[in-house]
Each structure stands twice: as C-alpha cells, then as structure tokens.
C-alpha cells in the first residue's frame, strides 16, 4: 500500500473516533447535576427561577439534548465553536489566546525530555548492568513515579521561593519574549520529567538490544571509533522504538499540562479546562476536549507515519 493511501485511511478512521469523543463528552456534561445556568444563578442571590428559564432559552439549553448536540455540530462544521456564557469572548477567540501558551509549555517539556533522555539513555546502555545503568534506572523510575503537581510545588518552593532564581508570580510577560523563558523553565521541567524518564528507559532498552546485533560487531571490526558506532548506528536504529512511543508520551504531556498549568498559574488550555469544568461552560469544555482528542489522534497518526516510513512492512497491517 502506498504511503499516501495509508495516511488517508488512517485519517478517515479518525473521524468516527472524534465523533465518539464529542458524543461522550457532550453526554457527560449534560449528566452533571448542575448546568451553567445553575452555576450562574447560584452566584447571584437576586436571580429568580424565571430569570434562569430565560437564560436557558437564550443559550438554547431548553432544547432536547439531541437538538443541542446537532446545533453544536452544525456550529463546529461552520467554524463557530459557540460562546462562553459567563464571559464576553467566544470560545474560538479564547482558544486562540490560550493555545500558544500550552503549545509553548508542551514543546519546552519535549525539548527538555529529549535533552535529558538521549544522553541518559546512551549512558545507561553503554554501561549496561554496571553502576551507571542501575543509577540511571533508579533516576528514570523516580522520574516516572514522582507526581507532577508535587514536583512542581517542590521546584517552586526551592528554586523560586527559597533561592529566588525564578519568578514566583504568575506569568506577566508576553509569551514570545526573552524574559518569558524564566517563567517557562520550572513548569517546562515539571511537565517534561515523566516523558524524559520514559524515553530514557526505552532508549536504554532498545540501544542495549541493538548493540548485541551483528552489524555493530561488524562496524567495530571495521575499526570505527566507538563513538561513531554508538551515535551513527546504534542510536539511529534505536530511534524507531522511541518514535513509536512518542504519541504515548505526547498524550502524557497533554494531560500533565492540566495539573502543571494549575500549579504554576500558567494561562494555557489545561488551566482553562479546569475553570470550564467548574463553571460547566459546555462549549468551552467541548472545544478543549475535542482539541485534545484531535491532538492525540494526530500524534498517533504522526507516529504511525514515521514508523511506516522507517519500516515499510508495517503498512500492510492496515
């Protein structure tokens, strides 16, 4: 099967998945005991039942659930994600304002993960079963086991509050300024730690496996320096297994961003999702969940494509 057909088929297969995500999320929000209007009325002692009914009519919440869902789908298909009921701007504008923040955080997390994991993995694999390997195993398991919100709190307490190396307050600068880096480092490290630890373990395992193969012996026998053997041959071939887990790790970073953004007061989508859930802002919850679902589908697809490019045999499985 050609690569193009493979990609097309996978893209088509993701349509029902996203449909399923939207139905489940929409259904769940409507199962919650209190809706957005209840939340708004609860904050305003003067509001009467008639006001609530009016609000519901205005928002279209009095319609049967399937009609509300179809309205939402129709809106989405025409590029209108609906409005944020309790505030001014529409969902689309809010997403556009918050999205770059989350992407910047996630990218920083990824860069940090790779910067730590690649040298760490090489170090462990070349010292397999020796002290360095055990130490890196311990470090990697710690990285996987540490709860990200606690890690964030501890980093903040030590490096921002006690040592005063980093700003304590919530981010104050525009995203793409140099000062912003100071705000980005602690949350970025927090979010990247688990991915880094996972990646390090995977690289170590697959590199150790590769190093036992004949072509490595052949390369060494040819007299190539060990450095070249490791980096040009072993590492490159081990990257395939790293690529296959990239999607899995991206999903981890995305869901990690929810908690980490709350800890650091980072104005991204994750923190917005918590706000939206607390206020029952249907359209906002739907938009963020759909976006996250789409991001995960795309990440999986990207991993599959890279895998298919690296190893053409896999294409036949679809």
């Amino acid at each position: 099967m050609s690569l193009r057909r493979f990609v097309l088929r996978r893209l088509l297969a993701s349509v029902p998945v996203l449909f399923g995500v939207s139905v489940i999320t929409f259904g769940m929000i409507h199962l919650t005991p209190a809706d957005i209007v209840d939340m708004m009325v609860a904050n305003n002692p003067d509001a009467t039942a008639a006001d609530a009914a009016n609000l519901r009519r205005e928002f279209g919440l009095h319609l049967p659930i399937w009609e509300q869902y179809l309205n939402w789908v129709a809106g989405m298909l025409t590029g209108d994600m609906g409005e944020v009921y309790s505030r001014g701007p529409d969902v689309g504008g809010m997403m556009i304002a918050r999205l770059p923040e989350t992407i910047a955080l996630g990218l920083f997390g990824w860069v940090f993960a790779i910067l730590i994991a690649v040298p760490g993995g090489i170090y462990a694999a070349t010292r397999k079963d020796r002290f360095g390997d055990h130490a890196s195993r311990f470090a990697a398991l710690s990285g996987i086991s540490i709860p990200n919100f606690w890690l964030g709190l501890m980093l903040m307490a030590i490096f921002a509050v006690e040592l005063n190396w980093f700003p304590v307050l919530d981010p104050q600068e525009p995203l793409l300024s140099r000062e912003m880096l100071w705000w980005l480092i602690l949350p970025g490290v927090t979010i990247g730690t688990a991915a880094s630890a996972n990646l390090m373990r995977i690289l170590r395992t697959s590199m150790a496996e590769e190093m036992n193969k004949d072509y490595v012996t052949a390369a060494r026998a040819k007299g190539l320096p060990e450095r070249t053997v490791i980096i040009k041959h072993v590492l490159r071939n081990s990257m395939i297994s790293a690529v296959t887990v990239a999607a899995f790790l991206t999903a981890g970073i995305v869901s990690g961003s929810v908690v980490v953004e709350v800890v650091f007061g980072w104005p991204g989508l994750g923190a917005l999702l918590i706000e939206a859930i607390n206020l029952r802002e249907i359209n906002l919850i739907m938009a963020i969940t759909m976006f996250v679902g789409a991001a995960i589908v795309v990440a999986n697809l990207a991993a599959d494509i890279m895998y298919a490019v690296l190893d053409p045999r896999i294409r036949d499985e679809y």
Partner: protein
Amino acid sequence: MSTQRGRIQITGFDADRVEQPDEAIWGDDEDTAVMSRRQRIIQQLIRDRFALVGVFCVLLMIGAVIFSRPITVAGIVVQPFELVPYDVTATGVGDRYEPPSLAHPMGTDRLGRDMFSRVLAGSYYSVTIGFIVTGIASTVGIIFGSISGYFGGTVDEIMMRILDVVFAFPGLILALLLVAVFGGGYWQLVAAFVLPGWAIYARLIRGEILKVKQNEYVLAAKALGARDRSVVFKHIVPNAIAPVIVQATLSIGTVVIGVAALGFLGLGFTPGTPEWGTILDAEQDTLMSGPDADWNWWATVFPGLMIFIFVMSMNMIGDAINDALDAQVDNINHGGGG
C-alpha cells in the same frame, strides 16, 4: 547463570541444563517445565534489590492501611489496632504549623492537626483505590480484549473502534469529566479511573491473544469440543497474561498519582479529608511564605513524599517483573499508539 539481568538474554545456552543433563532430557514434562520457569522468574525477582525494597515499602503501606485506624464491619470490630497517635480530624492537638518533633513526627498543619496521623491514615485512600481500580479495570479489559481478539472479524473491528475512542481521551481528562459528573468521593473516583483505565488491558490482551491463538494446543482444545468460553479462559488467557500483570503493577502507580491529582485540584474529596492530594491542595499556600518567612515545609513535603514512595515502589516491582519475564513482554509501554 543462563540469564543476565536486563532485557537481553543469552538464549540457547542454559547452564542449569548443562549441569543436570539428565533432568533436562528426562524430567522436562509439562509440569516441571512450567514450575522451573516460574521458579526462575521468582529467583530473579529476589535477586533484584530494587524490587525487594519496593515489596517492603508496599507491605509497610498496606500495613498502614490496615492498622492505622480500627476497622468495623457491620458493627463488629474486625481490626482493633489504632496506630495513629491522634484523631485525624482533631484540630488543635498542637500549635499551628509546629515543626516535626517527637510528639509530632511530621509536624502539624494549619489547623494544628497532627500531620503524621493524617498522612498515615491517608494511605487508605490512595492504596485501596489504586488496587481496586486496577483489579476492576484489568478484569473488564481482559474480558473485552479476549472476546475481541478471539472472535476477530466484525466484532473485533467494532470493539477496537470503541477502544480508539477511549484512547483519544488522555486518562486524566476523562477522569476529570467523570468526577464533574459523579461528584467527588471514594467510589466516584474508582469509577472515574476504571472507565478510562480498562482500555489498555483490552488492547494488550487482544494483541497477546492474536499471538497465542495460533498455537496448536488451542486448535486441539477446540477439536476436542471445548466451548469458546473455556478455550479462551482456560487455554488462551493464562498464556497471554504476563504483559497484563506487568501493566497492572505499573498502572497502580498511575492511578494513585491520578487520584492524588484530582484531590490536589480540589475535585477528589471534600476538603479536610486526609487524602494525600487533598492535604497538598489545602497546604499549598504554605509555599508562598516568601523568602524571608519560614517555609513550613513539612506540610507539603510529607504527603507528596508518601505518594512518591508508594508509586516508586510499585514501579520498581513492575519493572523487575518486566525484566524477569523479559522477552515475552517487550513493548509493554506502547499502549498509547495506534
């Protein structure tokens, strides 16, 4: 020694067999082969010091769960011990934010409650929810995945699309939505983590079953007239279970972190519950004391440390089992793909 720690094994050379050739030739019927493989795995686990430390910590924590507070079932006291020195909800047993001392080994919190009692009692929530969620999720996943993998065809296709939908939610986000629906509380949290959690087991066991299904003993069982149910659960599942066990051990840690994260976000339990994440949520403003004021570190360090130690222990055990089972269980972490 025939095996080497880590994932690489030297195959085709088995020192035990060379030393005891007779047994290798004559004593190798089905039963002893299984036993010796199992023994080898257990031996390797014992040699793994990480795993031993992990088991020790987990046993300590389970001890804390059982003995920290008396347990009564239907009015009868089944477990009379009470290890917590103070009532977990009693305020003012010490001053506000007393640093750790002999009387209060982990200090006191903002209401003068004894942190040690609260942290010890808090093990109940994380540890039991972790095990219960993993138990239910793996059972559901095994049944779902077995059916899907064994029957194949259209059934498989539909069931796999359902899995794709579950996988498109990152676990914590689905749990967040579910807690928004059900509200917080013990069994609500169990549900919130089972619903996204079973999918990984289903995918894993399905993949294993597709492999195991090809074996001749399965064909033989079918030819002998065994019913589908007994073929799946007596012949196929036991041979495909290894990676599921590893995954289950590793995901207890994920669930515990998730539960604590929801507690930290204020969505898990009512404020004041001695659950580790909820304690962290209540005490997180102690960090903001500023560089000159004293940092009441014990209020946030100990609950988080307990989560870390428990999850780390489970991961060390899981990692060691993974190593011991070795080549069979490659790619255990690759569940998010596809």
